[in-house]
């Protein structure tokens, strides 16, 4: 399975950006087309997982005459899929009534991509986000993170995955209040079994990288919101994860600070090639995203590349630093 996918991915990477049409959720064929080009999205909630896989595979091999598009350079790290979700459904029981939070979602995310997931509350956005982040298991369907089926993992392996492979950034920063900035960052490294020297060295380096090396011995309560979020970002990178999941990372910040945080995330995304997946309402976030996913009513509404979306912001090139 994994091998097959790799081959598929290889051919897709070479494909040009010819068909740039938006993916319509209801048209499996169109979705299949888009898969070959716009990078990885397979969106056809109307059909089931099997059909979508076929669509993707058939398409991946068809445009064999590859012209390397401009995007290919951008997707330098996008050689393979880091997250593959196949027909995931999630049903909760609320008061004896089933509530369908997700009604069959397929999404593939490439290594090194910057993805924003948008959607109103109650759309299933958070549920999808949690599934991709290995925090929740689907009722139906499969989620592969780095080619590993989440459903097969036991508690120890899940913890390992969360510790080493996934970094989390929260809307409310969620730093451990009793620990200094540096200690907050070294905590995941303690879990990962790093030596004290390694922890301190790496922790300092990360804090410098996010621009608050001078506040490393401060407690979260002594830091501003923006600074706390920087610490949280550094913490999410502590064990060199493959994915960073950011849940409304700018939700509790003012516009200017939010922009700084977004720029920082994008910088880290470019520099270290870490995949960043955000759930957001912030238009500023869309601007730096490689792709934007809209979720509504438990389905993926549409997936668009950044250059397919018109975003008018006051300052695109903020340069707030």
């Amino acid at each position, binding site marked *: 399975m*994994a091998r097959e996918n790799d081959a598929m991915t290889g051919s897709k990477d070479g494909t040009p950006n010819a068909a740039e049409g938006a993916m319509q959720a209801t048209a499996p064929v169109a979705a299949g087309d888009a898969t070959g080009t716009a990078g990885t999205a397979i969106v056809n909630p109307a059909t089931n997982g099997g059909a979508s896989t076929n669509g993707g595979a058939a398409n991946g091999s068809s445009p064999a005459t590859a012209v390397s598009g401009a995007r290919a350079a951008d997707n330098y*790290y996008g*050689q*393979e899929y880091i997250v593959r979700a196949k027909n995931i459904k999630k049903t909760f029981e609320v008061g004896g009534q089933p509530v369908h939070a997700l009604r069959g979602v397929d999404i593939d995310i490439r*290594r*090194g991509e910057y993805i924003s997931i948008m959607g109103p509350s109650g759309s299933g956005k*958070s549920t999808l*986000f*949690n599934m991709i982040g290995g*925090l*929740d298991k689907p009722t139906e369907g499969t989620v592969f*993170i*780095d*080619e*590993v089926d989440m459903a097969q*993992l*036991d*508690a*120890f*392996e899940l*913890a*390992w*995955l*969360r*510790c*080493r*492979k996934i970094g*989390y950034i*929260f*809307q*409310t920063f*969620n*730093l*451990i*209040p*009793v*620990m200094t900035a540096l200690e907050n960052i070294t*905590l*995941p490294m*303690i*879990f*990962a*079994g790093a030596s004290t020297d390694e922890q301190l060295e790496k922790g300092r380096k990360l804090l410098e990288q996010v621009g608050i090396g001078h506040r490393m011995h401060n407690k979260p309560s002594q830091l501003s919101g923006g600074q706390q979020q920087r610490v949280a970002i550094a*913490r999410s990178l502590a*064990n*060199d*994860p*493959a994915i960073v999941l950011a*849940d*409304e990372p700018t*939700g509790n910040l003012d516009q200017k600070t939010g922009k700084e945080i977004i720029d920082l995330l994008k910088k880290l995304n470019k520099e*270290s*090639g*870490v*995949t960043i997946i955000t759930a957001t309402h912030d238009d500023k976030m869309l601007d730096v995203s490689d792709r934007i996913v809209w979720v509504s009513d438990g389905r993926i509404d549409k997936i668009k590349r950044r250059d397919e979306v018109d975003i008018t912001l006051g300052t695109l090139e903020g340069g707030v630093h």
Partner: protein
Amino acid sequence: MATMSAGPAKIDRQISLPMSQAMRIALRNITIRLGRALITGAGTMLGIAFLMSVFANTLAQQAANIEIPAQQATKNLWLVIMSLLVAVVGITNSMLMSVTERYKEIGTMKCLGALDNFIVKLFLLESGFLGFFGSLIGAIIGAVFVLLPKFGLWGSLDWGRFLLYLLGCVVIGSFLSIIAALGPAIRASRMPPADAMRTEV
């Protein structure tokens, strides 16, 4: 960087929280919420102080060659049990509050890769520390209150027995504190990590 490595990830299962680090975190949690910790510890302290005072009284009476009536011994036993039960319930309640208060913190730790047993370990250590110091102080207070006015008996007191009772009090106090925190700790550890994402609470 590790993120560039190709191929499927190798899933390992080794996640660790060394005891020294766990103790450091637990102690930090106590000192940062010192007010609450002192109140929780005070419950243990009072219970153990009473237990120790009963022990000390027994010793004093033995030293003075006074026979203890069986009825009084039984009554004392019951009082001690009741006071320790009250202390245990107090610790459980306090720990439950602590779990609720630190809901997000626990979820965050689990997101960072903490196993369920790390969370249990942290809570039990915290409670164990409180129990240890609370009962140590309590035992000393209990002994001092009873024995200080009876300094005439000090010469004939069985001090070896006294130390044994003191140690017993500390062990009982720490043990009960850990037992009392077990329920809340397990409850905390079962919390789904996704709850760390929630903005309310």
